[in-house]
Each structure stands twice: as structure tokens, then as C-alpha cells.
């Protein structure tokens, strides 16, 4: 444990702000929760107890200055309004030199924008959920897809070599994989040389913009394996 617990200012006491604060308090952090609506703020204060819950505007500079923001390690702006989260993070960073700012992003298209405008971490719940669902859908059978987020289609795909398909060939000899950026071949937890002939169960990790379900590793019957 460090000498003093990290000080986190959470802006917005909706469901996200409330559960985040509670989680952080349980983890031993010092937390200040800032909420505009006085009714909501007092309700949350009663539930959280030890947390300093403050009524005020998270992007009102005069108010932020009273919250001890200049010694905050993290500001997490998690209101339901992207513009408020963005401006709160920008002010925290620029005026109060807060080392790490985190914004909840309600419109997934704003993730990249927030990074561009200086927010350290931009989290889109929509994107996370979509990602999990997509992964769930894509991980049927022998493939697993991990979307990399942003507006990009890029993802990491892990393909497991099926029995009877592409066996004895190198990755370069499987047409399905030929144009893709190969990152890793793993067998029994060990990284393999990319020239190693494949065996069933080998895991191939690719960086790609194709959907995981595309990768069947089919090799045309007539193509003969290259001898190595």
C-alpha cells in the first residue's frame, strides 16, 4: 500500500457514479463524489457514509477548486452527458494538473474524439457491451474475437487449428491467413516459429479487420503442401 490512498474525484452520482464510488471506497480509496442535484446527492451521501459527497457542478471551476481537486490522483467524470464529462476532464487536466482523467462516453463515436481532446481514458459502456456480445457470438467453435474499440473494425482474432484442416502446412500456406497480420502461433502455451508446420489445437493470433467467423482455414483440395 502507498503512504496514502489514491484520491479519486467522481463526477456524477447516477448509477455509474454511485457504484463506482462504492467500489472504490471498498478498495480503500479516498473518494469525493460530486453531484449537481442536491436531492440525489444527499440520498447518495446517506448510502455511502464515509464518502465525501459534495453538491455542486462538476464543471464549475470555482466549485471544483473547493473539492481539493489539485491533490486528486484521478478524476472520473461519469455523468450521462458527454459534453459535461469532456469539459470536466479538460478542466481537471488543464487547470488543476490532475494526472489521470477518465470519462464515461455515452455516444460511442466520441471515444476517439475524447482521446484527441486530451482525456486519458474514455470508456464507452455501449461499446464494451457490444464488444462482449460480439465476442460471445464470435467465440463459437474455434475462434475468438477481441474488438479493439474506437471506430475501427480492427480486432484480435484467435483461431484454433481444427483437426484435419491445414495440418502440416505453415501459416503462409493457408490461403485464409495469407493476407493477414500474424502476431503469434501458440502450441501448449509456447510461442512457435511462424514457419512451423501446423498441428491440430495450435492457436493462431491475428490482427485483422475481418470477422472471426471468416476464418475457416480451409485449404483447397488440389493445393499440395509445400515441403519444408
Amino acid at each position: 500500500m502507498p503512504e496514502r490512498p489514491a484520491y479519486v474525484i467522481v463526477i456524477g452520482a447516477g448509477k455509474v457514479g454511485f457504484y463506482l464510488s462504492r467500489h472504490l471506497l471498498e478498495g480503500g480509496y479516498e473518494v469525493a463524489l460530486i453531484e449537481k442535484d442536491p436531492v440525489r446527492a444527499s440520498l447518495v451521501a446517506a448510502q455511502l457514509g464515509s464518502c465525501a459527497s459534495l453538491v455542486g457542478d462538476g464543471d464549475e471551476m470555482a466549485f471544483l477548486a473547493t473539492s481539493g481537486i489539485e491533490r486528486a490522483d484521478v478524476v472520473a467524470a461519469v455523468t450521462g452527458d458527454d459534453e459535461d464529462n469532456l469539459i470536466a476532464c479538460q478542466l481537471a487536466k488543464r487547470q488543476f494538473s490532475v494526472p489521470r482523467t477518465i470519462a464515461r462516453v455515452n455516444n460511442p463515436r466520441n471515444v476517439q474524439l475524447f482521446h484527441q481532446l486530451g482525456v486519458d481514458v474514455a470508456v464507452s459502456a455501449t461499446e464494451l457491451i457490444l464488444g462482449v456480445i460480439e465476442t460471445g457470438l464470435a467465440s463459437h467453435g474455434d475462434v475468438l474475437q477481441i474488438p479493439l474499440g474506437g471506430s475501427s473494425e480492427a480486432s484480435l482474432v484467435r483461431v484454433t487449428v481444427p483437426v484435419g484442416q491445414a495440418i502440416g502446412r505453415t501459416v503462409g500456406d493457408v490461403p485464409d491467413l495469407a493476407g493477414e497480420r500474424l502476431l503469434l502461433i501458440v502450441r501448449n502455451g509456447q510461442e512457435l516459429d511462424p514457419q512451423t508446420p501446423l498441428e491440430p489445437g495450435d492457436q493462431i493470433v491475428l490482427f485483422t479487420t475481418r470477422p472471426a467467423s471468416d476464418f475457416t482455414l480451409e485449404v483447397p483440395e488440389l493445393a499440395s503442401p509445400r515441403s519444408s
Partner: protein
Amino acid sequence: MGFVSGIGDILAAVKVVIVGCGRVGSTLARDLSREGHDVAIIDISRRAFERLGEAFSGKAVLGSGIDQEILEEAGAGEADCFISVTNGDNRNIMSAQVAREIFKIPRVMTRIYDPIRERVYREMGLYTFCPTVVGAAIARTFFDSGPAEADRARHAVAASGASGGA
């Protein structure tokens, strides 16, 4: 560029996107449209567009000015000038930053009521104006020196546009 002295002048129509169809936004949109400029105005309320009147020949886009798709629909990708004047400081600031950083609009201006936030974003290079500061300055001049000086201060503001950065 962008100054128009009367009907009949040969002028290059400026493509302008205005966010917020309140009193300021609608007045500006009506005037610029009448003068032949290519105006698109965005507001989240359909009723707000009633302020534009029948003669308005520009484009009215229903939606949020911080939404990149709405800005695209308004033609932000080809705009020469962008002005955000909604009632929300943060919406104005965010849409102005989107206009500048994403759509690369060369001339971007935004209204910020909160003097402190206005100073911060002006320092960050946005062209901003703060009605609070301008209004207080005129009232103060009236208090100190009377109506003639206050009028002069008002005209100085009108002539110079507004305080602000690049």
C-alpha cells in the same frame, strides 16, 4: 472575407454552420441567409426553428450539435465558418472543438457564459466570447461614466466583435 455591404455586391457565399437556434442563432442565421450565404442551423427543438421565419432559405437540422453525424448532415465537412450559441456552455465548447478538430473548419467561434471557462478555452486557442463579461463591462461603464460612455463601449464591442484568442 465575409463582410457584406449590400445587395448586389459580388460576394463569395460563405458556408456557415450555426449550432443553437435561440435568439442569437436565429437572428444570425436569418441575416446571413438573406445576404446570400449558405447557412445550416442545428437545434434539438423543432419549435426553435419557428424563429427563422418563412424567408429563411438555409437548412435547418434537427439534432444535437455535439453529435458528429448531425454535424455531418449540416455540412460541417465543407463549412468555412462555425458558430455555437446554444444555452449550454459545455455543449458550445464541445461542438466547437469537434468543429475544429474533426471537421477542420477554419473559423470557429463559441459563446461561453461562464467567465472562468471562457478564459480557459480562449487560452486553449478557441475563439470565444462571454456575454457575461461584455454585459458587465458595459453596465460598469454606465455606472462609472454614464450613458454616452456606455454607448461608446457598446459600439466598441460591436465593432471589434468580441474578446478572444486566435
